[in-house]
């Protein structure tokens, strides 16, 4: 890690801190998972190490699935640090509200396609929110933050992944959450086919009904 120089804090997140730094003359992101004082040391270490190992692996898998993710340069498991490519661009979260209806639809369909490719390849992102999607200057969307992801083909995991996407849209972009999610699912269908989409939509409904206080779980008596 000695070659990584002049780090400046970009974002202190809940799970990790992101620094913009330099590595052999190029801009890089240094992602560090700091110990959480509230967690027992043993549990804390397990969680941080696990996520530091899995995140780069899943980002690599995502690339193989045809989903843009930052290139990983260095991993230090012991200190829970990852050094990766800096993507010049903006979070989709910041852009979506300022988009025209057409642009918004286009971006959401694209996002759906990316999720579709991940799922078809057995990668679950685990934290699909518009802050974890970066649009670069060439109009390419990168997915980041795979720390909560997993490798599985299970319908349940796909359903939860998309349910989280829907929930993120509802809490952050509630004015047009419905149309956005509908567009996401169209992009998703373009990759996985209508039949898989029907299954996953049924699964999402099932997951929602499992939740507490869902109006259509049972008839009001």
């Amino acid at each position: 890690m000695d070659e990584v120089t002049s780090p400046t804090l970009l974002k202190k997140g809940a799970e990790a801190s992101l620094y913009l730094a330099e590595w052999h003359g190029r801009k890089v992101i240094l992602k560090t998972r700091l110990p959480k004082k509230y967690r027992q040391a043993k549990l804390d270490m397990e969680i941080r190490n696990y996520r530091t190992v899995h995140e780069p692996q899943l980002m690599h898998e995502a690339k193989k699935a045809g989903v843009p993710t930052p290139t990983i340069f260095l991993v230090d498991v012991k200190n829970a640090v990852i050094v990766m490519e800096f993507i010049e661009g903006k979070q989709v979260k910041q852009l979506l509200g300022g988009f025209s209806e057409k642009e918004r639809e286009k971006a959401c369909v694209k996002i759906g396609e990316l999720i579709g490719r991940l799922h078809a390849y057995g990668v679950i992102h685990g934290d699909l929110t518009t802050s974890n999607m970066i649009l670069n200057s060439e109009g390419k969307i990168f997915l980041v933050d795979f720390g909560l992801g997993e490798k599985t083909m299970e319908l349940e995991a796909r359903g939860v992944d998309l349910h989280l996407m829907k929930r993120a849209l509802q809490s952050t972009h509630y004015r047009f959450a419905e149309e956005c999610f509908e567009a996401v699912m169209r992009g998703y269908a373009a990759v996985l086919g209508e039949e898989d989409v029907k299954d996953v939509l049924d699964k999402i409904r099932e997951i929602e009904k499992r939740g507490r206080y869902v109006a259509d779980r049972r008839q009001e008596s």
Partner: protein
Amino acid sequence: MYALKREDSMKKHRETKRLDEAYCLGVESTADDFGVGIITFNGKVLANVSNGYIPEEGGIHPREAARHHAEVAAKVLDEAFAKAGIKPRDLGVIAFSQGPGLGPCLRTGATVARVLASYLAIPLVGVNHSIAHIEIGKLATGAQDPVTLYVSGGNTIVAAFDSGRYRVFGETLDIALGNCLDVFAREAGLRQKKGVPLGAALEQLAANGKTLVSLPYSVKGMDISLSGLLTAAINLLHKEECRLEDVCFSLQENAFSMVTEVTERALAHTEKKEVLLTGGVAANRRLQAMVNSIAEEHDAKFNVVPHEFATDNGAMIAWTGVLAYTHGAVTPIEESFVKLRWRVEKVDAPWMK
């Protein structure tokens, strides 16, 4: 949804009453507690009386709990009026917990509230139980616009206000935190006693835990899943390889770390400067310490609801009733049916800016 109250009667009420002489009575009956609270329109709690149903065995039986509520209702009301030192005719408005919760229990409380409002010919206001937990926490601690972690037997929600409503940022995908701890405690042979919730007995055991045993840790985005953790903890318990104290300790550490992690995520996401811990499980010292730690980490002020307002209570319903009523909300009797699955983000909160 609230219906708008007729403007003229609102005006009359505002003109004739000073805030500290106007009273709201709140009826709470979503689950095992029947509570009545009386509060002034400027937020002074005059009475907060509660009577809890304790099951012979197992968890809450909705019909038995409702029967209990019907039996104690008159007694609890009498006691509340005596404590507050006011008469029923001094009341300006009746609030009741309209949902979410157990049907038979909610209906019993709603019936009491309807009768009072009709007999006294004063307005009725249906209140969302989850929002009431947030509002009483804010009133008691002075928090203005916090990220709230609301944890109880029936709810596990991370919520924050944005554009007119409280939005749910994270929640449990299956069972509630309090439910998880209670089921485990019963499985471990702990019994609920008057005044000592199961969670408190579990907390005491956990405090004597030494060894952390590996158990599932399941954070999915902003949401959590607790059912797998509960099953694993129960299996561990029945294997009898670990001390009970260590299993309690490990269960608490895992479950609390999960809710704290998602609360921290919501805090980082919203960049709010206050955190509020509310609901029955808020009484747990270990959870308080954990949430306090993330508040410090993000330079936010940590607030925890005082003990008397942590579990379900009538005062929180009364206070939220005041907030809703003074911002134009009333619930006509014919629209006062209970809403078993009334979600937080379906409710307008016009009293917030």
